């Protein structure tokens, strides 16, 4: 299967030329080159660092919002509306606004990532909190568990899977979004280097970095999120 795809790719690259569709060999050489020069780590690291701040901040903010929503009915309504508004706002809106607010700096991709992933994680968490089994909470009342005991023994464990699911989707989104935002005003990161490669007509490097992105996404999914979910669900 893979061999057929590569063969087809190679044939098409012969037909259209290296600028439109670089050959598999050229892409492989490009990949070897960025590994040899260490560029792969520099740019992937820069992107991941921005994601860590933007997406990490979004997770923290979402947890805070969900907590408040759990405690107050009023906040629950506000969070619900906020999530709806944020969810329907385009990535580009945040990129433009963040450039106006923060100039051409690291904060533009960080802020964009934050604003895009916040509603995804928050809506999952709020849904998780809302779906806590009332019958288990009533059991807690019968046995006179304190509010804190009910929170740690019942609310947190039933919400955690929703948090992990939200983070999994959120992280994928964070990677895609921050890379777009990196086209503007920063001089490192996968998005920057892809756009730069395009400008110097090195199309094969655009493909190489796209593959790096796919690799990062697959690895974090398999290594981080799947492992965490398995650990959380070990009672199943």
């Amino acid at each position, binding site marked *: 299967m893979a061999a057929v795809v590569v063969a087809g790719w190679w044939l098409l690259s012969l037909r259209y030329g290296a600028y439109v569709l670089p050959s598999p060999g050229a892409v492989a050489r490009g990949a070897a080159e960025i590994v040899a020069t260490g560029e792969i780590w520099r740019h992937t690291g820069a992107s991941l660092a921005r994601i860590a701040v933007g997406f990490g901040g979004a997770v923290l903010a979402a947890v805070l919002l969900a907590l408040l929503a759990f405690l107050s009915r009023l906040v629950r309504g506000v969070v619900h509306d906020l999530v709806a508004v944020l969810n329907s706002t385009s990535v580009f809106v945040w990129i433009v606004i963040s450039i106006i607010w923060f100039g051409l700096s690291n904060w533009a991709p960080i802020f964009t990532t934050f604003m895009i992933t916040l509603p995804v994680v928050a809506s999952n968490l709020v849904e998780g909190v809302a779906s806590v089994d009332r019958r*288990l909470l009533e*059991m807690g009342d*019968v*046995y006179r*568990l304190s509010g804190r*005991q009910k929170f740690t023994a019942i609310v947190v464990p039933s919400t955690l899977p929703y948090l992990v699911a939200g983070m999994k989707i959120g992280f994928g989104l964070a990677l895609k979004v921050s890379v777009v935002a990196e086209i503007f005003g920063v001089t490192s990161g996968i998005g920057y280097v892809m756009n730069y490669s395009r400008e110097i007509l090195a199309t094969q490097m655009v493909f190489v970095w796209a593959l790096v992105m796919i690799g990062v996404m697959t690895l974090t999914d398999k290594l981080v999120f799947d492992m965490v979910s398995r650990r959380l669900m070990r009672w*199943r």
Partner: protein
Amino acid sequence: MKLEVSGVGKDYLIPVIDSVSFAVEPGEFLCLLGPNGCGKTTLLRIIGGLEPATRGRVILDGRPVVFEQWHDRKVGVVFQEDRLLPWQTLRDNVALVLTPFGRPAAERLATADRYLNLVGLGGFEDYYPGRVSGGMRQRAAIARALAIEPDLLLMDEPFGALDAQNRRIMQNEVRRIWRQTGRTIVFVTHAIEEAVAIGTTLVMLSARPARVREAIRNDGRVERAKLIDDLNTMIMEEVERQQGGGPLGG
């Protein structure tokens, strides 16, 4: 522990429970019987302080039970579902309800093991609820209710979800545990054979709105087969009355 239910009634949109009165002596095993939908579960929840009554009072050892207020008598409840936390082992599930008593963790775990052993779950302490059978989960729920050493144990059709064989086994177990621990038990069921097999007092409720139709001492003076026959006749009459009782009947 003495429980008095006097003139308890409950209205939702329509009156569900008209007025029910009975008393339960310490160490008694009372079965609440009645047609489906006559308010047995609601009555049990009122006794447990999980729901307010529209009228009447529930008195535990001289003090009234008030909805959402602490009572100084301990009440354990076994629900129709096991209501175990799926992410905690059976041992942790039982130990959890001992935390409000503020004893050290090791003691809580030891108590949990003791009660799990009592209900026949020795060796399964480290299992998660999802890994054991429905009957075993319901046993764990009973162990949890017993672990707080309740003055009153309320059971709401705890074996409803079990197959006939497991049901029989669990009835014998509950009877044995009752004898062994001497707890006062109020047990809701709609299965007459079950009530006659395990209860010392049988209270038959009428169709909705519920009243006490009959209270019978099950002390072996009346022959079992005859008692079951009589109760069956009664329940069929009440079921018919309920079905004829308007648009919400049946």
